[in-house]
């Protein structure tokens, strides 16, 4: 569920403006070697989660490096908060997570955050306070004295994410933020991105993982060959205006046939499809791990943090985020894990009559009745609520 659905601030001020941006890499003799970015235009507004999507080598990371002043554009114009990307003071409003966690290997995680806190001119108490909260948030609270060089890739991503948030930035630029993270880490990062956007932060996210972008982004640009191939909100880009999907609880065969008869009255049989919706693998995995955790299985390395640092929460609309994350968390967990049996039916073009017969079978001959959704709901909601509470610090 993209954040745009409930995001009320996407029409805010322009935070990033890119016009005619071109980057040509040249060789030693100044001959053009590669046109990494070619005439790109886009704007990012306050509170938006903006996705840069594209295959490897399509120009996403180059665009991000141009936005950060790490590369100089060959042509075009970039403004961040109305200033050049090289404007030093503007950088105090930006948090950046590079595609790899380029951190000093000899520093431990606490020293890493302290160092970057110093670059933001934070006083000692503030640095300590934020470092404490961020390390808890990214699940590295128990590995504060280990050198970053000894960390796994996933742990390095987590500390990288923490350093990107040490200054409570208004604009967060994340280059492949879930690369190297386990599914729990991915989910936490995505939840965090949504929570940050709810607090008016602007997020620019680059990824080639479609699920990352689909889960969190309001608006995306799709790159290929250095050029923007598509640009718009996910709703605009993904909606199929010429088809319709209806999701209902399980229906009796008679009711279903009545519905289908009504539908077939208007359209041909071949264009109607009936099947069970499935949860995605990520949701299923998270549920398995949550159960394992309840059974107190120990793990080494990074812990699941899932708790947004207090200073990042300040001043936000907790209720809105609660609803948003509640929706995200409760939806996939509604179905029981052991027996993901049909709980509802979807009617869509392209139905299969045999499949239809199979789908209605459990209701017609309930050899072993499927668990009712209503019975599962209280458990799932309390778990979601618990997670939400720790994520946003709201009341249980």
């Amino acid at each position: 569920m993209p954040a745009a659905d409930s995001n009320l601030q996407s029409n805010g001020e322009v935070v990033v403006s890119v016009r005619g941006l071109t980057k040509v890499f040249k060789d030693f003799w100044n001959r053009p070697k590669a046109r990494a970015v070619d005439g790109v235009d886009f704007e990012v507004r306050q509170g938006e989660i903006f996705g840069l999507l594209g295959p490897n080598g399509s120009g996403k990371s180059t665009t991000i490096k141009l936005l950060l002043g790490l590369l100089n554009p060959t042509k075009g114009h970039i403004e961040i908060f109305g200033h050049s990307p090289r404007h030093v003071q503007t950088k105090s409003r930006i948090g950046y997570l590079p595609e790899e966690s380029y951190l000093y290997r000899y520093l431990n995680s606490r020293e890493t955050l302290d160092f970057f806190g110093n670059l933001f001119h934070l006083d000692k108490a503030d640095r300590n306070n934020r470092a404490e909260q961020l390390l808890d948030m990214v699940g590295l609270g128990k590995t504060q004295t280990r050198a970053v060089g000894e960390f796994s890739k996933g742990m390095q991503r987590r500390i990288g994410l923490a350093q990107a948030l040490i200054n409570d930035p208004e604009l967060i630029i994340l280059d492949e933020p879930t690369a190297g993270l386990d599914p729990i880490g991915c989910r936490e990062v995505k939840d965090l991105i949504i929570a940050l956007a709810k607090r008016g932060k602007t997020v620019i996210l680059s990824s080639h993982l479609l699920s990352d972008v689909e889960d969190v982004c309001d608006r995306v640009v799709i790159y290929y060959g250095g050029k923007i191939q598509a640009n718009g909100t996910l709703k605009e880009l993904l909606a199929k205006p010429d088809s319709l999907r209806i999701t209902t609880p399980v229906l009796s065969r008679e009711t279903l046939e009545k519905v289908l008869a009504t539908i077939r009255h208007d359209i041909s049989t071949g264009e109607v499809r009936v099947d069970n919706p499935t949860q995605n693998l990520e949701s299923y995995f998270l549920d398995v791990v949550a159960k394992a955790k309840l059974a107190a299985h120990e793990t080494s390395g990074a812990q699941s943090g899932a708790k947004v640092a207090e200073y990042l929460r300040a001043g936000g609309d907790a209720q809105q985020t609660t609803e948003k994350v509640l929706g995200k968390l409760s939806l996939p967990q509604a179905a029981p894990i052991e027996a993901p049996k049909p709980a509802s039916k979807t009617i869509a073009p392209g139905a299969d009559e045999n499949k239809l017969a199979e789908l209605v079978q459990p209701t017609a001959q309930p050899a072993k009745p499927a668990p009712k959704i209503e019975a599962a709901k209280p458990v799932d909601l309390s778990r979601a609520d618990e997670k939400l509470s720790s994520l946003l610090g709201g009341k249980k």
Partner: protein
Amino acid sequence: MQRILAIAGLTWKAALRFKLFLVIAVLLILAVVGLPLIIKDDGTAQGFTQIILTYTLSAITALLGLSTLWLACGTLARDIEECQIQVVVTKPVARWQVWIGKWLGIVSLNVVLLAISGGCVFGLLQWRAGKLPAAEQKILREQILVARGSAKEPNNPAAIDADTDRVLQERLKSSAVEKVDLPEVRKQIREQVKAALQIVPPGYERSWKINLGFARDRLAGKPLQLRVKFNSAQKSASGTFGALWMVGDPPKTKYWQTEAPMSLAPDTFHEFEIPPDLFDANGVLTITFANPNQTALLFPLEDGLEVLYPEGGFGLNFARGLGIIFCWMALLAALGLLAASFLSFPVATFFALALLLVALSSGTLAESVESGSVAAGNEETGQAGYSIADIVLIPAFKGVLAVISLVKNYSPIDALSSGRSITWGELGSAFAQIILLVGGAFAVAGMLLFNRRELATAQGTQ
């Protein structure tokens, strides 16, 4: 400042965690303690102390210099290659602050390493001096473990040039000289004019008038020391030559003279004490040398004769000497960072080392400038060839030599090993010339290059 100090602190953490600090410190201490065990000396306490000072300080300078250059190239270039710099410069820190922070980190490391190794040298000297018999200890503390002021006859190149031109004009009036030969003729005449000032023929005498300046007020009643060196074109059977000295300008002043000729070896420095209060009311000390030998002796204008007088203690003088070595290290740090500002680590290290070698072997450049050409001379005519390259290169070489001389004009190791004073003025001037002027130029160039550089072209190599 918080940002600069944070970056400087990072260099410290890297040096400590990668054990670089420990390794350099151990090497320096080994050099200080180990060298006195393997070097040979002339058997005297003074000779041994001089050699310890010269070798240990030279070893410290060389070791620290190389490690400084390597570290300076590495700290910035590797940050760029391993991409950590991408995270740093996207924070609100200007690139010049990153550059200065790196420099400050290396320089502060040097301060500590220099203090540790210098402290070891100082302690070793004091410990050894304390074990000597009282008489030797007295000589050592008067000649080496002391800070002595120095006064020389002013070396006046303008007067030499004026005399050279006068003689040249007279020569040109009497006989014509080809235009192409003129520089060579002038060079020969200049050598003759210089020789007339340096050479004392057999049976002749030569006087030096040395102004002690403001030091005269503090030198009343204190014995002074003469430091002399001469060369001879011929060898004597005994290996030494006689020397008759008179110091003072009677009847204006008291005077002292040698009863019998002193026996002195050529090509080496000799020091001997002269009684106090031989200078006149203006502080001018007159020294006369008479040559009783059958051969001419040559006293070089630069270091032929020098008056040394007590000025201060060894401890502070030693610290000032280390201060000048520190200035060199700070310059090397700036050179390394300048190279790393636009080059990769291995290339930057090579570039910086190459520049250092050019600076250390500036004799070839000086020879080219002196001959006025970079081309080899014609062996048949003995004349140097002149080309278009000379028009560009000779002024460039002059500029390079001028810059090098700003740095090489200081010789703290020589001064300390000969017990000569390094004044606060000298230290201040070294700081201004080496760090502010030359180091500042390196820093400005380095910061400009670093500021213009695209920092995200490298792929991480960590």
